[in-house]
């Protein structure tokens, strides 16, 4: 850690991991509800538990991004953070807002929460991933603005690197496209059209800039490869991301009442969306192979490589699998989508956050370069357990999705939704068991922060 103010990243990372645990817990609950329909019913119905699962995911990823920015920007800018106290204040504001929102989900019926928070004044609730009460959304805007101000001022007064600028651009885009979540017309088609401006342009647009810059930062640090080379790659990758991803939004405009030319445009451009992810995988391995040093934090390098590979598999391959309109006609809104969603979110955004935490947390906790060997071994186990589980979860959901698509949509005698669900429950059981393995991985991950923390750092092997 080179600058004092980088320390504000630590609470952000801690909050991220705590919310990660909540996310997985609720993931297991809804996974069980898939097979034991009345589990926790009517106390915690599925929609509430799922909302907690997805919302805690989004919020912890945002915590992670903010922590990453607070850690990375001072170091890149070679200056102290503009205002550490503002960062700390915003941490508490965001944490309290998130905590109250989740408590609201769990303690009050959703319609009660809507009345309590005055949803009728500016209705924005009840749309997938944007279920937060309007007041929470406003809170997110305030936190994002304060955060951007803080980061922006730091970048302005210090050294401007490509990593810095791309990160800043991604974060500005994140804030700007979130504003579309306040647009909620009665017209369902318009509602959905611009809902995707937040959701798609986040995860297949500006978030990838954030992902790219964090990955570039960590690779610069752990491989010691010349910054020029890495920054050049970063530009090419994010250029390809936006070139394919912006019109690629069209793959969501096939069946929601939008003109039918989107079936062509969406298919053509989103078919190319795997390219930047492929380049990212090639890039990451290339840089590690060309490394000029053997950084003692081996597990951070492992996470970085894992991110590149899993993002390619999850977002690239599994996305391509059902992105062409003639295929999507049958798979739209089935477990295939769920399969893709799980691996893409884990591979791209969960893993990039864990990469950053793996690199930065030891330094934030007073290590000079890396955690002890025992800690790293444990974390490596966590890496493999979580990664393999998510691959299996994806495969099981894909199996469920293929069967569902066939029985409900393709077969000459299509069966009703619920009848099909019962016939594919085996896959849901397998998914749930694998989810327990994932939880084991997560437990080991958390243990790696505590077990062996007094051990010495591994020797630097050069």
């Amino acid at each position: 850690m080179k600058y004092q103010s980088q320390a504000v990243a630590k609470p952000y990372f801690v909050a991220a991991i705590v919310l990660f645990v909540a996310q997985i817990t609720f993931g297991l609950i809804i996974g069980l509800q898939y097979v034991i329909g009345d589990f926790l019913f009517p106390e915690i119905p599925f929609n509430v538990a799922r909302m907690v699962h997805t919302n805690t995911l989004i919020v912890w990823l945002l915590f992670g991004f903010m922590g990453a920015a607070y850690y990375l920007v001072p170091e890149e800018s070679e200056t102290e953070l503009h205002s550490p106290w503002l960062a700390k204040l915003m941490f508490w504001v965001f944490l309290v807002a998130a905590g109250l929102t989740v408590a609201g989900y769990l303690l009050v019926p959703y319609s009660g929460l809507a009345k309590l928070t005055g949803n009728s004044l500016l209705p924005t609730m009840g749309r997938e991933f944007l279920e937060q009460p309007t007041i929470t959304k406003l809170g997110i805007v305030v936190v994002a603005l304060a955060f951007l101000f803080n980061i922006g001022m730091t970048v302005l007064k210090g050294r401007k690197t490509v990593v810095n600028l791309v990160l800043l651009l991604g974060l500005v885009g994140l804030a700007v496209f979130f504003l579309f979540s306040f647009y909620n017309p009665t017209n369902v088609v318009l509602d959905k059209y611009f809902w995707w401006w937040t959701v798609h342009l986040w995860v297949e647009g500006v978030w990838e800039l954030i992902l790219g810059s964090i990955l570039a930062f960590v690779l610069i640090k752990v491989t010691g490869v010349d910054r020029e080379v890495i920054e050049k790659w970063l530009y090419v990758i994010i250029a390809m991301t936006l070139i394919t991803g912006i019109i690629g939004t069209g793959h969501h405009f096939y069946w929601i009442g939008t003109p039918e030319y989107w079936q062509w445009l969406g298919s053509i451009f989103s078919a190319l969306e795997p390219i930047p992810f492929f380049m990212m995988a090639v890039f990451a391995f290339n840089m590690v192979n060309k490394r000029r040093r053997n950084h003692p934090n081996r597990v951070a390098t492992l996470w970085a490589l894992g991110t590149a590979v899993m993002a390619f598999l999850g977002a690239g391959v599994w996305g391509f699998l059902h992105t062409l309109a003639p295929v999507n006609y049958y798979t739209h809104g089935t477990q295939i989508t769920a399969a893709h969603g799980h691996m893409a979110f884990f591979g791209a955004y969960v893993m990039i956050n864990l990469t950053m935490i793996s690199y930065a947390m030891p330094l934030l906790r007073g290590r000079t370069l890396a955690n002890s060997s025992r800690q790293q071994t444990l974390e490596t186990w966590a890496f493999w357990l979580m990664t393999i589980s998510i691959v299996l979860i994806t495969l099981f959901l894909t199996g469920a999705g293929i069967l569902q698509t066939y029985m409900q949509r393709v077969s000459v005698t299509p069966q009703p939704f619920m009848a099909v669900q019962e016939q594919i429950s085996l896959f849901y059981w397998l998914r749930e068991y694998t989810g327990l393995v994932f939880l084991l991985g997560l437990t080991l991950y958390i243990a790696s922060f505590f077990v062996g923390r007094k051990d010495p750092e591994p020797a630097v092997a050069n």
Partner: protein
Amino acid sequence: MAQAFTKAMARNIFYGGSVFFFLLFLALTFDSMGQLPMRDNRAALSSDLGPTIAHGKMLWEENNCIGCHTLLGEGAYFAPELGNVYTRYGNSTEAIKVFIKSRPVQGVENRRSMPQFNFNEEELEALAQFLKYVSEINSAKWPPNVQG
């Protein structure tokens, strides 16, 4: 002299390419907005039933229906698609209302069950009209069959 591949050029391509494709996206959005009136069943929204449908959408959102169901394929995959439920139930708003009303408070042993929301008659009508409105959006012949 032979500079293979410069950072400045990569940067220019990033900025140029992004702006280019974003402008293209805006142009396509502009065209889409012009086409929507022919497809999105907005006539229903400006009819006498308009306020009822709007109320229905509000109820749809404030009870987080999307947390279990899909609507035109988007949402959670825990419960059936509702974009075409009106046609699946034989073009009957009554059937939709009867179903919503009949959900058991304590659920069904071992099975997935929709919660009992205790809607009044007016609310039931609003929801049913909302679902009827959605079913009449031109969704390019999706879903493939009535099962959704």
